[in-house]
Structures are given as structure tokens and as C-alpha cells.
């Protein structure tokens, strides 16, 4: 028995080592993960308080309060956006240093209460502007992320593996002998997966939403439109990956290479708004980032169509780009 086991083990090792592309991806993936995690989690511990400053840049020399330890000061030139964050308690205080010095504080926020004391000790005459608003629970913030993550895995792996299996078994070759075009085949895969995803996400939305007591602040129909466009973009991306390859392991590697950075950089688990600009730029390339940013804007802030239109446009454009590339590079049979 051991001999048979070792024979199969040896043959499998040879097969794996000789599949150069899969081997390369298997080696590259952990390196990419280590590098990615390093960038995301590197740096000193987070400060205790977060204060928004209404300015393009913060000049720490201009005001002693800006040199307080354990307080993070972030430039927030958009007053409306900053007040929204204060309402949701993702900022503890908002400061306007122009004369006369004003500040906004959320009277429902314990951290706001403490950081206000620190401010008044440094700037006694600052004018108080109270706002109210219950903190957005982490689970409320995370909920769109969970939906998005499920969407991403279902879209990418659901279609990627299936197409590769069809190609490997010769089923695609048989379809190629019919009048079916690559675009029709890919379109059918997209629609089939879309129907599954819409059903599953609706169940998740209603089920988890009921359990955690969550209701979208925005229009649910708009959320559905966003979900459809996001799913289409991610399915099309999965099809693009599966367009040529005939090795499940290679496609698995490529899909992992796409899903892990998206999971880390698209804001599934935590916000990246304080990350370096280049990280945010990279994150902005991923369709999932646009799905999550738009979903949170609709679900938490009650954003409308106009506010999330750039995200919807990005998802629509990437859908067509991925589908066109997938159809162009599609191979019906193993080379």
C-alpha cells in the first residue's frame, strides 16, 4: 500500500513541478500576500482619537493643539463629508482653525467628549457646534463588506473553474463545433452566475440584515443595480482569467492572486481611507472597491444615484472591457 501511495505521490509531485505556470503562481502568491499585509499593517500603533481639520494641508506649527500626542489629525477639506463622518463617529471631532476657531463635536460620542476637553485646554475660546448621531456599528460597516466578499468569491471562482473544467473535458470543443460564438457562450455563463448571485445575495441581505437589525438608509433598488453591475464586472473578470487556461491549479492560483489583494485592499474588513495614497490608488483599480464604497454610501449614508454614478460607470466599463478581452482571447480547446 505504501509503495502504491509513494508512486502516486511521486508522480503527482512531478506533474506539479513540471507545470511551470502553476508552480510560479504557487510561489508568487505567498510572497504577494506577505508584501501586501506588510504594507497594510506596517507602521506605528493607531492613535486614540481622530480629529478632522477643515484644510487642504495641516500645518502643525500653526497651533499647539495639532501637536497633541495620541491624537491623529486628518485634513478634511470637504465640510459636508467630514460632518457625515462625525455624525457616524468615524471622526471624534472636526476643527476649523480659521478665525474664529470653530469645532464640531458629536454629543453622543464618548471619545468626542474627551477630545473636546483636550481642545478647550489648548484653545479656550473655540466656538462649539454640536451635532448628534449614533455611531455606525462595526457590524453595520462590515455588512456590505461581507456581501461584497461573497459576491467576489462566487463570481470569480464560480465561473473560472467551470470554464476550465469544460475546456479540459472537451465539452467546449464540442460546443465550438456548433454555431455558438465565444461571446454567446461567455454571455450565458455571466447570466447564469448572475441569477445565482442575485438569489444568494438577496437571501444573505434579508437574513443577516434581519439578524443584526440592519436597514439600508438608501434606496434598495439602487443597491440592487449596484449589485448587478458589480457582479457582472467580477464575473467578467473571472471569465477573462479562464479564457485560455486549461489547468484548474493555474486558474486557482491566478484567482487567489486577484481575490486576496481585493479582500485586503478593497475595504472588506477595515477602511483604507488613512492608507498611503498609492494603496488607495491600487485599491481603486479593483471592481470590489467600487462595489463596497458605493454600497456603504447607499446603505449607511443614504446616497443616491448621482453620488454613486462614478462607481456604477466604472463597473459598467470594466464589465465590457473584461468581456471583450475574454471573448477575444477565448480558447475553445486545449492548445
Amino acid at each position, binding site marked *: 500500500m505504501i509503495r502504491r501511495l509513494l508512486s502516486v505521490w511521486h508522480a503527482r509531485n512531478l506533474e506539479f513541478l513540471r507545470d511551470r505556470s502553476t508552480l510560479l503562481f504557487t510561489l508568487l502568491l505567498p510572497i504577494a500576500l506577505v508584501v501586501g499585509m506588510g504594507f497594510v499593517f506596517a507602521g506605528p500603533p493607531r492613535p486614540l482619537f481622530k480629529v478632522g481639520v477643515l484644510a487642504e494641508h495641516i500645518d502643525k506649527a500653526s497651533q499647539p493643539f495639532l501637536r497633541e500626542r495620541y491624537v491623529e489629525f486628518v485634513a478634511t477639506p470637504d465640510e459636508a463629508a467630514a460632518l457625515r463622518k462625525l455624525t457616524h463617529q468615524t471622526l471624534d471631532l472636526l476643527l476649523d482653525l480659521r478665525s474664529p476657531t470653530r469645532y464640531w463635536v458629536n454629543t453622543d460620542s464618548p471619545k468626542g467628549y474627551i477630545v473636546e476637553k483636550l481642545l478647550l485646554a489648548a484653545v479656550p475660546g473655540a466656538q462649539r457646534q454640536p451635532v448628534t448621531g449614533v455611531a455606525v456599528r462595526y457590524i453595520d460597516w462590515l455588512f456590505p463588506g461581507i456581501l461584497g466578499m461573497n459576491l467576489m468569491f462566487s463570481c470569480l471562482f464560480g465561473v473560472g473553474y467551470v470554464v476550465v473544467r469544460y475546456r479540459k473535458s472537451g*465539452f467546449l470543443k*464540442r460546443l465550438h*463545433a*456548433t*454555431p455558438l460564438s465565444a461571446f454567446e457562450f461567455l454571455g450565458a455563463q455571466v447570466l447564469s452566475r448572475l441569477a445565482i448571485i442575485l438569489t444568494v445575495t438577496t437571501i444573505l441581505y434579508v437574513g443577516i440584515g434581519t439578524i443584526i437589525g440592519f436597514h439600508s438608509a438608501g434606496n434598495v433598488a439602487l443597491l440592487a443595480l449596484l449589485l448587478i453591475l458589480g457582479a457582472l464586472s467580477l464575473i467578467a473578470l473571472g471569465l477573462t482569467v479562464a479564457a485560455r487556461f486549461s489547468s484548474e491549479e493555474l486558474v486557482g492560483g491566478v484567482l487567489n492572486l486577484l481575490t486576496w489583494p481585493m479582500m485586503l485592499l478593497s475595504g472588506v474588513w477595515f477602511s483604507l481611507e488613512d492608507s498611503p495614497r498609492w494603496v488607495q490608488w491600487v485599491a481603486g483599480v479593483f471592481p470590489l472597491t467600487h462595489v463596497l464604497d458605493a454600497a456603504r454610501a447607499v446603505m449607511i449614508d443614504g446616497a443616491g444615484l448621482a453620488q454613486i454614478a462614478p462607481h456604477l460607470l466604472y463597473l459598467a466599463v470594466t464589465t465590457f472591457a473584461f468581456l471583450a478581452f475574454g471573448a477575444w482571447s477565448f480558447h475553445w480547446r486545449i492548445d
Partner: protein
Amino acid sequence: MSTPILEVRDLVKQYPATTAVAGVSFSVPPGMCFGLLGPNGAGKTTTIEIMEGILPATSGEIRYRGELLGARFREEAGILFQKTALQDFLTVRQSIALFRGLYSSGLDVDEVLKVCALEALAGRDSRKLSGGQQQRLLLAIALVNDPAVLFLDEPTTGLDPQARRNFWELVQSIKARHKTIILTTHYMEEAELLCDEVAIMDRGRIVAQGPPQRLLREHFAEVLLELPRQDFPSSARELPLKLLEARDRIEITTQDLEGTLRTLLAAHVPLTNLRIRPANLEDLFLALTGKELRP
């Protein structure tokens, strides 16, 4: 002769390390069953796959009804590959219906089930069919668009003799409906039974072409004597006889049967296992190439 439904002109297919098809030309009139014969590696599957539009040719062209292969050909051709997997979890009826949906016209699913004797299996999971039933299903799928030309690439390889004969009967019934059939096979019995014309391929080239009986008449005016190799002593190889060496037997072709038998007896060759038979396509292939059809 009627206008060909299919024309193959100077077809070449080169791979980096080998030339699979080295300049093949032939034409097939409507209603004919045309056979491409040859051993594994002769280039017949490559030729048929280029004809089906599945593989691109390195050079040369295929014309269907006078036009290069295009949308019309895809609508009017039925194809049975050597190996095909179907979509999992579909019944026989659903598998046929899936392909029926890909064509703008064709036969009803029930009619196809009847033609291929699959009515009793219509509700069965296609993965749970026997080899013969599976081939009948693949033939049904190839017939679903009521094709003008049907490609059958080694359709009975791996089937037991009974399933093979059942399949031949099906193909004969399709022939009776005046369909053009392109068949590749290395079973000579299959080719002799089904084909109106054959092209024998070796190393990517056609080495002989014509109706099977005419080819045999042209190449064999003699009868053929077969002896097991172990019954044929090496000293007998020096006898003035026309010998063909197959894997397990020695074949002697002669027009003078009595004289040949006398020569063998005089050389003390045991004749207990001697078989005398007319030549067939396998002998023709052996005579033309010095190789057996079946590896």
C-alpha cells in the same frame, strides 16, 4: 459526377516537431460515405478536425458547397468527435435539447431520440450510460440539426462487438437518408461495410484512394495465405514467395495457390493453421505501407 459538397485542397498541418498532414487533397460528392483510413498518427483525425473547422490549417483550404467554411457550414454540419464529454447532471433528453437549442433548424428532440434508439434512456443521467449508449447519444447530438454532412471520427473505437454492430446499423440508416458522411476509422470491416470511397493515409499523406472493392481489385489479383509467425521457419523466408510480415502472422500473396502450397510442403512448413482468404483493406494497407493498420 455531381458537384462536391466538400473539397479539401492541398491541406498541410505542421506542428513545431512534426508534419501531421502533408498536402492532402480530395473531394466528396453529396450523399457519399467517405472513409479516411490509417493507423494512429497517420493524420486522419487532424485532417477531419481541420475539415470540421475545429483546427486551423497551416496551408490549403476546405470548401463546403464551394465556399470556405463559415456560418452556413456550422449550421449544416453534424460532428461526433473521438472523445467528447457532456455537461454533468443532464439527462439524455436534456443533453440533446441543449444542442438542439444551438441550431436555428433541425429535428425534434423526440425524433432524434427515436432515430438513435434512445427513447427508453431519455430520462437517464448521461454519465450513467454504457459505452455504446454514450456513442448513440453523441450521434444523436450530431444529428440534432439534421445535418447535410456528418463527421464521425473513430465512432466505434472502444465499443464491444455488439455495440459496434448496432452503431453500424444506425449509420447505415443515416446513409439511407442520403446524408454525406465523413468517417475515420482503423477498423477495416467498418470501412468496407459503410464507405462508398476510402482514402488510405500514412504519415500525413493519402497513399491510395477509391471505392474499397476497386482498390482491392487493382492491388490484389491474388489470394492470400495466412500462417502464424511461429509456424513459419526462418529458412522458409528464402523461398520464392511474395511475403508480407504482420505482427503475429506471415501473409503470402499468390495467383498460383496449388504451386505455393506445394512449395510450402516441400519446405516442411506446417500447414495445420493455414488460412486462405481474399484480400481486404487491411492487407491493402500492409501492401502499400509495410505497416499494419492497428498498432
